[in-house]
């Protein structure tokens, strides 16, 4: 009986191999031929890679990347422009308009100077507007990179360019590259974690932390700040740890057997993802529980454990923004906890920095100060906290957006309404990295290294 069953099963298996399965196997054969050709060029590859070994010993072990989605205005935060202030309200000179295209700007727009007052801070004498009072206290730990440009003036392609090096979908994000190259220090947590605040995820969507053509195990794992940190991480009622273990073992055995016959490495990726998810079921809830932090740490960040932001449920989060919303602060603290536990790359997206309209929620003069108060104390606290724990030398903190604003107002029928265009070609980014000890400031070699690390992704 058993033999008959086995025979009939294998016979049926042969009979029902379809065109789809044939094509799947044929693809493998062609891939194998291509692989053998590639292997012949092995020595060329080896020579190329030995030529690119860095000459300095890198010290950074992890990255915390704070992306202000919507593009913070550089002219109102970091870039003091006294000459522009002289021309405030004047018509834009023709020489700056000829041959250029700007989003939302038609005809001859009027110039718009920085709206906030500037002062110099720290020994490095960095210019900062009065919107970032906390940051001014630690400005000597910050490099402001003023040379970044972009050719994308819509949010989605500009965000994709910043995060994947291409303004199109389908490429691997910087976080997935870093974890692909360096691996994770903690086998019980994902190597690349994404946290969002501001009521929405960035316009570019999940592709911003996708793995593109890299194995999908390197894509960012989005953690929620509220409720279950990762959706569906908790087993349903009736599935205990033993039963779950059996199910994952059976799934992995079948996937592994399939991988051996089809050669599709995605099967192996899925095996490791289920294994990681199983381990994360116990490690993640502990890692993300910020209520274990001391009162002084919570105060430093302005974090409030368990806070439920109105912005998370509002139809338009911008209409309910409050300057004391601690969601971003909670995420900054969470980022430190994750890096402490060996997570390689933590990325925070804060939505709501698109300020080229009129309030509520969309203007440079009213909304930008609110957003700054949401992030200023927390981002500063992150630097202070990492430093006092001796982690700042090994943690690169990057802050930036996808572009800035134009120095002129967008054409509008409402007089004196300060609407600006987002179609500017200067991106601001500042960061602190302990790569070279105490070296910091606007012209440091450290900063140059980091710029190269970011922009070289555009070169194929």
């Amino acid at each position: 009986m058993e033999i008959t069953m086995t025979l009939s099963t294998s016979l049926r298996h042969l009979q029902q191999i379809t065109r789809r399965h044939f094509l799947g196997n044929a693809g493998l054969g062609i891939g194998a031929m291509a692989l053998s050709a590639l292997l012949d060029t092995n020595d060329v590859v080896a020579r190329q890679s030995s030529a690119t070994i860095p000459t300095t010993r890198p010290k950074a072990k992890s990255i915390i990347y704070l992306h202000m989605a919507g593009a913070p205005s550089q002219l109102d935060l970091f870039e003091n422009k006294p000459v522009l202030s002289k021309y405030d309200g004047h018509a834009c000179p023709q020489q700056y308009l000829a041959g250029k295209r700007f989003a939302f700007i038609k005809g001859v727009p009027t110039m718009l100077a920085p709206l906030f007052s500037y002062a110099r801070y720290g020994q490095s004498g960095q210019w900062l507007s009065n919107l970032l009072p906390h940051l001014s206290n630690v400005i000597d730990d910050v490099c402001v990179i003023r040379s970044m440009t972009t050719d994308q003036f819509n949010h989605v392609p500009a965000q994709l360019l910043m995060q994947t090096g291409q303004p199109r979908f389908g490429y691997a994000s910087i976080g997935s590259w870093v974890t692909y190259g360096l691996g994770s220090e903690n086998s019980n947590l994902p190597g690349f974690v994404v946290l969002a605040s501001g009521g929405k995820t960035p316009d570019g969507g999940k592709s911003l932390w996708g793995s593109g053509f890299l194995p999908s195990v390197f894509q960012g794992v989005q953690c929620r700040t509220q409720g279950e940190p990762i959706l569906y991480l908790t087993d349903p009622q009736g599935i205990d740890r033993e039963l779950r273990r059996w199910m994952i073992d059976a799934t992995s055995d079948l996937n592994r057997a399939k991988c051996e016959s089809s050669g599709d490495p995605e099967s192996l990726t899925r095996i490791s993802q289920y294994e990681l998810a199983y381990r994360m079921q116990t490690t993640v809830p502990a890692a993300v529980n910020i209520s274990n932090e001391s009162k002084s740490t919570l105060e430093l960040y302005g974090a409030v454990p368990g806070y439920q932001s109105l912005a998370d449920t509002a139809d338009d989060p911008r209409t309910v923004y409050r300057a004391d919303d601690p969601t971003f602060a909670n995420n900054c603290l969470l980022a430190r906890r994750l890096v402490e536990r060996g997570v390689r790359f933590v990325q925070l997206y804060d939505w709501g920095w698109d300020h080229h309209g009129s309030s509520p929620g969309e203007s440079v003069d009213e909304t930008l100060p609110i957003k700054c108060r949401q992030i200023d104390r927390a981002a500063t606290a992150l630097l202070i906290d990492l430093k006092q724990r001796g982690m700042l030398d090994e943690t690169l903190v990057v802050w930036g957006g996808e572009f800035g604003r134009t120095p002129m107002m967008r054409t509008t029928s409402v007089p004196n309404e300060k609407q600006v265009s987002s179609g500017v070609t200067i991106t601001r980014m500042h960061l602190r990295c302990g790569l070279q000890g105490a070296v910091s400031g606007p012209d440091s070699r450290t900063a140059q290294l980091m710029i190269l690390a970011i922009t070289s992704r555009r070169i194929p």
Partner: protein
Amino acid sequence: MMNDPVYLEAAYALAARMVNEANPSVDERIIHGFRWLLTRPPTSNEVARLRQLQIDAKNKLAGNPEQARRLLDACTANRSEPASLSPDEFASYVVVASVILNLDEAVMRN
């Protein structure tokens, strides 16, 4: 995905198909569910692996009907499992169906 409510409900429905539509043997039920999802019959090794899971789950849940009940309640608000099996035996097929649904071959990414 094993914990996504949609997939739990789908596993419940697939288990019902396996029990209602296939000949009443463990292997035939597994083959039926497998073909529904993957458009091919399982190999004898695949059947054997899933059979082992079903037997383990059945033995475990038979000793703990309360756990089986909670599992089935978690799958759907409108329980209507086949009358031919006890709830704990049916739950063992839900476990098998959930694994089939989560196989890499069933989850098409590319």
